């Protein structure tokens, strides 16, 4: 009896901690069935490859949501940072410099959000709603004032080819983008689970007052979280440029705030903060990428895409809340 209880408790704790992987695997199986024989190493590798940009953005979003805040401006940030990075590359023909610039711009934009939210103590929802409007419009204005219709990498430059390789080539069948994603995920997982800063983020999201009375500098922690999200934003924007070769402020990064939030939530991070795992975010994002592929494989109208994504999101949340729901039902019955 006791053994049985122990086993049940173990299953429950594994489910509780790793349900994001199970959701991911379930969606993956559906994809493999639909695809039957046609699945190759390349199709499999395309899942993380197509999740790299949104995945890295979602990692930053995950950190922000862990503190109990939110960032609606990530899609617009991608358009602005990406667009300006294209300009820097076209003017310098220097990959390293373009990368550093992208990260620097990400930090600046993160700092603006962070200072307004952490130090001035404005609500994150409003601040990032405002910057969401501003950043995309700035990207469009700069483009327009140069009489361009799109930010396009200059293919005539000598460094264009190596940049394209970063964004599109593979090493031993593993796309370079995926290698970069793995490194970033490893760093972020370490940061969130094994450093004092990571614990501070969780403490802040779980009980801000208690965190403050424990000596944690709540304001600075908030600022720092947005700056880290900015660094990730810079990396993601650079990879987007390397992958796509151009940035269209009207469409690039559109709805990315929603997709990244959805990835975070499917990854098992609580919207009220303090609870969840950064690792889950990657699986949450990849789950969404597979849904895209399923829709393509089935030859469905792409317009139905968001309907299915929304439904999967609701389903995933319902599954995660299952223990809480059954507990409530049980309580209602005994009461």
């Amino acid at each position, binding site marked *: 009896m006791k053994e049985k209880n122990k086993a049940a408790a173990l299953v429950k704790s594994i489910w509780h901690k790793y349900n994001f992987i199970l959701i991911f695997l379930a969606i993956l199986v559906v994809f493999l069935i639909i695809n039957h024989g046609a699945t190759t190493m390349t199709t499999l590798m395309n899942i993380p490859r197509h999740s790299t940009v949104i995945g890295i953005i979602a990692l930053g979003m995950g950190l922000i949501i862990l503190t109990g805040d939110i960032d609606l401006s990530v899609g617009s940030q991608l358009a602005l940072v990406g667009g300006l990075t294209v300009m820097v590359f076209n003017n310098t023909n220097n990959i390293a410099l373009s990368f550093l610039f992208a990260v620097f711009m990400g930090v600046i934009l993160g700092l603006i959000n962070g200072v307004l939210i952490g130090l001035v103590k404005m609500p994150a929802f409003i601040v990032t709603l405002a910057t969401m409007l501003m950043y995309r419009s700035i990207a469009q204005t700069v483009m327009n004032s140069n009489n361009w219709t799109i930010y396009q990498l200059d293919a005539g430059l000598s460094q264009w080819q190596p940049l394209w390789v970063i964004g599109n080539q593979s090493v031993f069948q593993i796309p370079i983008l995926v290698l970069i994603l793995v490194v970033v995920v490893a760093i972020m997982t370490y940061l969130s689970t094994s*450093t004092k800063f990571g*614990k501070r983020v*969780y403490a802040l999201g779980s009980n801000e*007052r208690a965190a403050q*009375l*424990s000596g944690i*500098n709540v304001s600075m922690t908030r600022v720092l979280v947005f700056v880290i999200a900015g660094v990730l934003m810079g990396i993601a924007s650079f990879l987007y440029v390397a992958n796509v070769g151009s940035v269209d402020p009207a469409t690039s990064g559109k709805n990315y705030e929603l997709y990244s939030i959805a990835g975070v939530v499917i990854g098992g991070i609580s919207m009220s903060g*303090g609870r969840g795992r950064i690792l889950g975010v990657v699986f949450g994002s990849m789950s969404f990428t597979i849904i895209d592929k399923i829709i393509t494989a089935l030859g469905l109208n792409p317009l139905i895409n968001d309907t299915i994504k929304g439904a999967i999101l609701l389903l995933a949340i319902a599954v995660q809340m299952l223990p809480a729901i059954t507990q409530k039902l049980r309580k209602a019955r005994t009461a």
Partner: protein
Amino acid sequence: MKILQMTDITKRFFGVTVLDKVSFDVEEGEVHALLGENGAGKSTLMNILGGVHQRDGGTVEFCGKQMDSITVKSADEAGIAFVHQELNVINDLTVYENLFLNKEILGKFRHLNKREMIRQSQELFNRLGVDINPTDMVGSLDTSRKQLLEIAKALHAEAKLFILDEPTTALNTEEIEHLFGIVRRLRGEGKSFIFISHKMPEIFEIADRYTILRNGSFISSGRIADITPEEVTRQMVGEGYVNQEVYEARKLGEPILELEGLTGKGFHDVTLSVHKGEVLGFTGLKGAGSSELMQAVFGAIPFTAGKLKVWGKPVASGTIHKAMKDKVAMLAANRKENSVIPDMTLLENTYCAEHTLSGRHPHIHVKREVAKYNKLKQMLNIKAESHEDLIVSLSGGNQQKVILARWLNTEAEILLLDNPTQGIDVGAKTEIYKLIQELAKAGKTVIVNTLEIPEIQKVADRCVVFYHGGVQAVLERSEITEERVMLLATNASAIRAEQGQEV
């Protein structure tokens, strides 16, 4: 004529008897003071009358009618108005909207008849002599006016009996006089009041009769004119409290914490000197300022005037982190809101304060931390299985020990404990007293802020009694008796002095 007669009221919570056959009555047109220490059963009795709790035994007769089962609604309809200690007004609505909430006057087209509601509000305020504009936002009113609005709300409901639960906590002397004026006028109109307060001068000013409860039992009842504040205090506290000895005399060191005229929000002009290895008790009524003073020493709230010296060095009105670097720690009151990080494990809860001091080394060495945690766990006798369990899975007493471990883990030398035994069982309380003694023996300086005087008697070398934000007295260990402290904390000694002058 009796308006209320409660007979043999019994109430049990989870098998624990909190009211044992208590009888209580109120005459028409009187102010009746209901007295007792914290936990004596006053609130439970009033919550039964107001329909918040259901009684397990006894009868309630109001205006000559038996009330079988009381609900909040039926109490309201019968004419019992409960003015709660916490303000129940809605800040984002106007005064008249609050007054008429859920009782709105409607016009022909089921629309709100605002003009009529404003007119009636104004009439009510005129009658009460309250200068509140019915169209003001409630959020813009000061606390005392909100309190008066709360009372006006009860009056508006045409109540016959008012329960005022510590109504003066938020008011200054002038406002208290004003409130008492209103109470007297209404008493003249035949309304009755049950008045709950810990402040002796107020009770002796306004009340006609009193009833004293202690530990859930009826102790005595009578006319205020026939009793003295000392006698009231003696009966509230009771005699024959057995003092389990955990105290040991120790040699104290040099002054480690010095306050000179320290002033801030809620406390003023506090001058104190605390020695190394000393255990100092802070006490006073709720809102007397001792908790705020502690928070100011810890840097959680600012002080506006005066000097604070730690280890002989002056400290600016600063930040928590700076206080922690000076080896000051504070176990905050209200464990759930201020201390517990519910989504974190026992280990993480033990380390979250230490991490801010050792932030220069960002990597967490789990093995080292677990070893230290196990030591603290053993020392504090924390009953828990794995260090990976969530803190919320523990009982209140064990949670508090984990929070204590959090602060001992910072190697603090000065421990400020704000209401450390709040909501924990007797066994854990005794353990915490013992621990305080042991820490002091090991040379730590401990300040304990508590409303429970027996706790201070158990451990303290000296006791500081606060009243209205100021230090009323500093008592040596031999002078700490419950009666003496209560007299000082309720400022009952002031009345005696006044009476003495009049004679």
